């Protein structure tokens, strides 16, 4: 049997117990005393207390981590290296009894009967995070290459210089922050989330966590980011084409379900705008994964002629409490009680104002007219769209009893136009349908390939007779198809 004592230099209770431990050790008792403090601090404490020997150091807090006390002084009774009992803080009777079992005598006269100890250094949040990161590296949970940022470098500038940023400052992805992010999912850090275009980078949970840290994600949003990355890597989403196209579209993440509110996403006023960390960082994390893991960078692989601000981050949460219908993800197969993400290849959103329509028919006609201009009125069948109904518009459909299918069908029919208005050269506009394809100028030509190619969501503030339209990129089997994934497998 032997005793192992853990102390630190700035603990008054350690100051009270240390002389007794030091004296017993000097008299030959099997006691090993280790300090959690630095060498100079430990030496100063030994001098101050007139100890016969300076306590050993505990490099990297290895033993402190192993025995993991809440408080010091912590005296452990070891039997062949295995702990059989311990006392944390000052408890004269218990300490004396423990020492006795190791064949030692502690002179604790004059000390209080009981006194709580001080927090172990391993309980310091900064130290605990460092230790957790080291443990993660040792166990293989962290495998990403470590990069050193020089002492004279500004870390934020260094991340720009290394090409990791999307043009705005990113949070330095220290191992401590990444370990904290990884704690938000039950998945193994080395699980593969997806293979990311254009260079087929393997997005492991760890790599996604690194980029989520850089994006500024609160850890509880991390499962949403993982589901979004999984969806983006589905071949049906055609991420390679989306990254490399001259079109301005990028991945839009629509979050539908109870988790959105729990992680702090805003689905009400300014839902598509600024001011909400959870929403903005989820969209940004996905784009950083595309940039850093996939390798798609503007001006190189990304050939967008103009791009758009949503290529920094494009994400919003659906307002489901008073929606005319269940969420977009739920409509696409995610169970009602779960949260899902739906990814679309989308442009920037654009407003459709109608402050006068009071019937569902009037509103559908008005919104359909706005939808016809996705990409160009004369480009038909090639582009999908997402219509985000504001609550005041949604109320019109809800009160009329129109469900999602009815609204889609009405929008599909009302966005048709006569072929003669869409032909190349009509009204002096070169763009349009080839004349040889038109046999009847009065024939109605649909804008969309099918009613279900008009996606519907519900979000926005209480006031405002507005809706928003996200135009799509080349759609369907020849282009990008919306992809929905449940967040549950990533929690």
């Amino acid at each position, binding site marked *: 049997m032997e005793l192992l004592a853990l102390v630190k230099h700035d603990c008054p209770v350690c100051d009270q117990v240390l002389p007794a431990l030091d004296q017993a050790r000097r008299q030959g008792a099997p006691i090993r005393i280790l300090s959690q403090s630095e060498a100079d601090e430990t030496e100063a404490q030994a001098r101050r207390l007139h100890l016969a020997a300076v306590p050993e150091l505990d490099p990297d807090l290895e033993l402190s981590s192993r025995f993991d006390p809440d408080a010091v002084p912590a005296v452990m009774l070891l039997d062949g290296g295995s702990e059989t009992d311990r006392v944390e803080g000052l408890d004269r009777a218990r300490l004396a009894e423990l020492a006795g079992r190791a064949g030692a005598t502690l002179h604790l006269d004059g000390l209080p009967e009981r006194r709580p100890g001080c927090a172990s250094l391993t309980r310091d949040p900064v130290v605990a995070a460092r230790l957790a990161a080291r443990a993660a590296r040792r166990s293989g949970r962290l495998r990403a290459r470590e990069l050193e940022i020089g002492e004279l470098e500004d870390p934020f500038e260094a991340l720009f210089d290394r090409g990791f940023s999307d043009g705005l400052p990113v949070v330095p992805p220290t191992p401590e922050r990444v370990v904290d992010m990884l704690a938000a999912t039950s998945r193994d850090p080395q699980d593969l989330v997806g293979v990311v275009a254009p260079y087929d980078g393997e997005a492991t949970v760890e790599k996604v966590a690194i980029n989520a840290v850089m994006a500024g994600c609160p850890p509880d949003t991390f499962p949403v980011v993982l589901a979004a990355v999984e969806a983006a890597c589905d071949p049906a989403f055609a991420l390679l084409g989306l990254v490399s*196209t001259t079109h301005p579209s990028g991945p839009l993440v629509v979050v539908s379900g109870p988790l959105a509110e729990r992680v702090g996403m805003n689905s009400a006023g300014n839902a598509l705008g600024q001011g909400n960390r959870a929403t903005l960082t989820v969209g940004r994390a996905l784009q950083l994964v595309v940039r850093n893991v996939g390798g798609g960078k503007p001006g190189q692989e990304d050939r967008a002629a103009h791009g758009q601000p949503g290529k920094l981050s494009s994400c919003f949460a659906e307002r489901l409490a008073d929606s005319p219908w269940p969420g977009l993800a739920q409509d696409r197969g995610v169970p009602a009680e779960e949260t899902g993400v739906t990814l679309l290849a989308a442009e920037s959103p654009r407003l459709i104002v109608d402050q006068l329509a009071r019937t569902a028919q009037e509103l559908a006609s008005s919104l359909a007219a706005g939808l016809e201009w996705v990409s160009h009125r004369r480009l038909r069948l090639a582009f999908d769209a997402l219509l985000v109904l504001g609550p005041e518009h949604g109320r019109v459909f809800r009160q009329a009893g129109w469900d999602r299918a009815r609204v889609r069908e009405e929008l599909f029919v009302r966005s048709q136009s006569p072929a003669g208005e869409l032909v190349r050269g009509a009204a002096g506009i070169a763009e349009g349908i080839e004349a040889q394809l038109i046999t009847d100028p009065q024939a109605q030509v649909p804008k969309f390939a099918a009613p279900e190619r008009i996606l519907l969501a519900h979000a926005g503030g209480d006031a405002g007779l507005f809706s928003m339209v996200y135009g799509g990129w080349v759609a369907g089997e*020849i282009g990008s198809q919306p992809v929905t994934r449940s967040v549950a497998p990533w929690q």
Partner: protein
Amino acid sequence: MRILDPTRESAPGGRPLARRRLPDGQPATIALLDIRKPRGDVFLDELERLLAERGHTVLRTAKPTFTKPAPADLREEIASRCEAVIEALAD
């Protein structure tokens, strides 16, 4: 400060240029790959005419859609039947 690498940790290998050029003046079989962008065929028609004038055999091929990479079978067909390929880009 130490940070974790956010990238896939593999520098692009780069793509080597063709190992050999087609010999000058000798007829060859050349694939023209239409990526299916509007008016790409206009460009390829003209290229086909110019190549034919110089005695080359032209194989016209096309991707199913410009939004996705050429299928493996198509790439294999071009590689096995042709000595060179010209891919038509639009926009």
